[in-house]
């Protein structure tokens, strides 16, 4: 019997080592796997490459990871925010490398990795400084930039419900990068609000089939924990 559920956040982090590349899902508050990130910080490893849409807000999540000095490089579309002070400080001090990627190229490159493409010609960024030095091509009258897939060793994502085979469904806009990051990482670790018995998830509505998920850990949502 295959059971991908793990019983602790610590166990969910097993194997992540110095120098790993780690995708982290979430867009704003929605879909941010905060508890997995806390467990990653607790693991006490560094030199990480993080692939995520933002570079952290406030004091939690990716911001805390950066504050703890664990991140060598971040690949993201929107690092600068009102409360991204931990990233800002690390960046200004030269302690963190930034690869700035337009959000659609980020999504498409992650998807390309998951789908096994070697490279893609994308329309976004042509003629801008973000395409400097990159190969370009005019195809059917339109200009494109060649972009490489983004793979990762691990993906940390947050979903709504999961089962022991790793099938996942999401909730509202918390879906965002989860499904494509799950496809692009060697090991995908999903925190879910609830692990349900196999067969409870309707096969028509499963968004991420279990083939893309290696570990599932149940983390009660904060609002439940707060009232518990």
């Amino acid at each position: 019997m295959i059971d991908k559920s793990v019983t602790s956040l610590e166990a969910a982090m097993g194997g992540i080592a110095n120098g790993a590349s780690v995708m982290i899902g979430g867009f704003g508050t929605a879909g941010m796997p905060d508890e997995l990130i806390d467990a990653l910080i607790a693991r006490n490893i560094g030199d990480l490459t993080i692939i995520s849409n933002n570079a952290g807000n406030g004091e939690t999540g990716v911001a805390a990871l950066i504050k703890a000095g664990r991140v060598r490089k971040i690949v993201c579309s929107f690092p600068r925010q009102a409360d991204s002070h931990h990233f800002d400080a690390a960046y200004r001090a030269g302690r963190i490398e930034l690869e700035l990627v337009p959000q659609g190229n980020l999504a498409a490159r992650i998807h390309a990795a998951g789908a096994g493409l070697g490279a893609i010609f994308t329309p976004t960024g042509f003629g801008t400084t973000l395409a400097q030095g990159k190969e370009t091509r005019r195809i059917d009258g339109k200009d494109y930039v060649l972009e490489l897939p983004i793979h990762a060793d691990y993906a940390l994502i947050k979903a709504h419900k999961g089962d022991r085979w790793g099938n996942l469904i999401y909730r509202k806009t918390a879906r965002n990068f989860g499904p494509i990051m799950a496809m692009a990482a060697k090991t995908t670790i999903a925190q879910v609000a609830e692990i349900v018995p196999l067969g409870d998830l309707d096969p028509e509505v499963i968004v991420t089939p279990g083939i893309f998920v290696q570990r599932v850990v149940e983390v009660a949502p904060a609002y439940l924990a707060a009232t518990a």
Partner: protein
Amino acid sequence: MINRFNRDQMAARVASDIPEGAYVNLGIGLPTMVANFLPQERDIFLQSENGLLGMGPQPPAGEEDWELINAGKQAVTLRQGGSYFHHGDSFAMMRGGHIDICVLGAFQVSIRGDLANWHTGEAGTIPAVGGAMDLAVGAKQTFVMMELLTKQGDSKLVETCTYPLTGLSCVSRIYTDLAVFSVGSTGASVIEMVDGLSLDNLRKLTGVPLSEFRGEAESRQ
């Protein structure tokens, strides 16, 4: 005396150019206000880059669901008939030419429709691009909403952008506090002006060649 459009009037003016049935993405900041002026009885489909189509207004205070947010990370709602999807599909919508109109803010727009809205290029600033480049090149039409002049009185409608570009030849309309412009391969033309402004005034304020708008044939091809 010149009657500037205020921000609400600018938003209402943009909204009046959005037809029923349009799939529309409103950028963060000023463009978000356009949603307030779309007539409720018209089916207009608002897309948000973070994976929803059929975005509705903000929920009442206290009823926010922080897993239902827009690109600006504000709590929103979903209209009946709306749907959720992942980032891959969301940007496929934009980049695949399925969005009819996107409305973006800008630092500068050139008379040929080049857009600069993501980075001032100043030393020491931290760049952030988000989905702006994808929207600019992906939507069938890109509208810009901005004040025409900087606080220093410089025109943001320019012959050639000096700020780093977001996209080339992508903007077709510019809605400002002083005038509405069509821009594109044949240059800039003026669709309308606020009361009290003349085409000559506007030429002086902007310093760019401006013609009178003569219909859609002059707009972006």
